[in-house]
């Protein structure tokens, strides 16, 4: 996958260093993959089809036509609870920022997809497990508000462990805030698509992620409300491997479709065409 120009300078040195690693081992089949081949294959194992978790900017580059104008990048997280356990919360944010090259768990902005202007939000599990803090909620809200003003469709890629503990109730309130923004956006007749990626759970799945007009999930993604470990501890037995996979949710009627990453862009283009009133 060629690296668009706007991606330059978006990554910290450390993140770029990881990009430079030559080989990556597939966690599923153990195949050692040449990093450049893996990227060219949209981070899907060329041997077994395992979908690696994508970094936000890689995801954006894999979807949009060219340019991507970021929104809310200057809205940055604080430390409302003055949280400190094994490490202080600002220290956790700092190391995640260096590791992921992101300033929060979501990147939002506007771009074209097959010539059509879209609002695009992409969550990244590499930053605080994709958890939703105040700024995550704020950026998604800004995105939906701007998309509503412009009357353009919105696509959000979800990947999250839920609400972020270290921001306490102010994190939980982001469920309410994003819900309100989604509701207004949809009430005006705008089209809203969510792509659930591995993993999506907790407060994110229980708010803006499951409020979409069409819910797409990436193949084999783990999706649920409660985490697998919590459920296993509650019922005191092991869950079947299939439980909470995208395929499981499709069978239960909770989502619209399961799509392989290679087909994702074309699928989104078709969905936008159906909803475009042309």
């Amino acid at each position, binding site marked *: 996958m060629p690296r668009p120009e706007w991606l330059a300078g978006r990554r910290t040195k450390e993140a770029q260093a990881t990009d430079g690693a030559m080989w990556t081992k597939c966690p599923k089949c153990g195949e050692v993959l040449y990093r450049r081949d893996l990227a060219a294959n949209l981070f899907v194992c060329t041997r077994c089809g395992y979908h690696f978790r994508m970094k936000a900017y890689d995801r954006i580059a894999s979807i949009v036509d060219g340019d991507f104008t970021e929104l809310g990048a200057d809205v*940055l997280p604080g430390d409302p609870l003055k949280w400190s356990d094994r490490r202080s919360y600002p220290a956790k944010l700092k190391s995640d920022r260096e590791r992921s090259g992101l300033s929060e768990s979501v990147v939002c902005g506007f771009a074209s997809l097959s010539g059509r202007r879209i609002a695009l939000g992409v969550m990244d599990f590499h930053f605080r497990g994709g958890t939703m803090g105040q700024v995550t909620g704020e950026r998604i809200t800004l995105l939906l508000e701007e998309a509503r003003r412009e009357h353009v469709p919105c696509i959000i890629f979800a990947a999250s462990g839920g609400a972020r503990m270290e921001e306490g109730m102010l994190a939980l*309130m982001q469920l309410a805030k994003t819900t309100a923004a989604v509701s207004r956006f949809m009430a005006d007749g705008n089209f809203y698509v969510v792509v659930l990626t591995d993993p999506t759970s907790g407060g994110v799945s229980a708010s803006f992620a499951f409020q979409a007009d069409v819910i797409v999930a990436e193949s084999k993604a783990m999706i649920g*409300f409660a985490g697998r470990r919590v459920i296993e501890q509650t019922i005191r037995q092991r869950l079947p491997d299939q439980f909470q996979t995208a395929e499981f949710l499709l069978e*239960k009627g909770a989502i619209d479709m399961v799509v392989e990453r290679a087909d994702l862009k074309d699928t989104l283009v078709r969905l936008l065409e159906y909803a475009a009133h042309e």
Partner: protein
Amino acid sequence: MSNNLIVERERSLVELERRIAELREASAAQPRDMSSEIAALEEKYQLILRELFGTLSPWEKVHMARHPNRPTSLDYIARFDRFDELHGDRHFRDDPSIVGGMGTLRGRNVMVVGQQRGRDTKENLHRNFGMPAPEGYRKATRLARLASRLCLPIVTFVDTKGADPGISSEEHAQSEAIAICLQAFSTATVPIVATIVGEGGSGGALALAIADFVIMLEHSTYSVASPEGCAAILWSDASKAEEAAAHLKLTADDLHRFGIVDQILPEPLGGAHRNARDVVTRTLDAVEAALSPLAALTPEILLDQRYRKYRRLGEWQAEGLEPVRTAR
């Protein structure tokens, strides 16, 4: 042996309570004036009460919020002028961990919805310890929409550890049920007043707590996750719940400071269950007082206010750190 800290602590009072009651009985039965002895004992009783419950840590408040005798949603609803329960999600099942229906409060017709835990073991099993399944949230969604259609203000009572984390709840799309419930309350065209009466655990609590006015009892708690859940998530060790409770800022004072809670209702020394009747009366007074000005607003103004109320949350920032601000 109870696993509730507060219940354990109350044991030391039981003997004293018994002696006071005995003295009162004896005093009534014989001519000798025993009022000074009774007064002395009662003074001692109050002293111990203050010692035990005068100041409560966040973790102690978590236990107070979970106290088996703490008034539950149905105890509040029982004191409405009248109430007719409405059941079911119209798809699959009636979830007894959420109760709801139409009623009259101080002469005003309302829709009421609340999470309902059990008041004893048998009822707790029936009500799944107050942890709603998707069917419960779908019932709440249905009632919120009905309330908008009938122009009935919505009164909610929040009391849950969290949404049910079980196999069947996942199979029935718990996430979707909560997400849509949030949307139903967010877009309801009638006033909503929510009261956190016990434990407010995570998204499962918030589903009934998106409101124009939020009241919280002094010793109730409301948090992003239960302390046990938070400890499990952060440190893979649920036994560190007490430490998590101290971090989470889950008390009424904390949440009032953040602007998440609009009003705190004081509780009697030792908790709401020590004078449940009075607590319920004052709560319903406060609900009515909050509803009254909201009922005068047009749906447009109401929705706009509600939007801005939640829109604001997220601008909060700590001093000396990079600012959190909105781009508007």
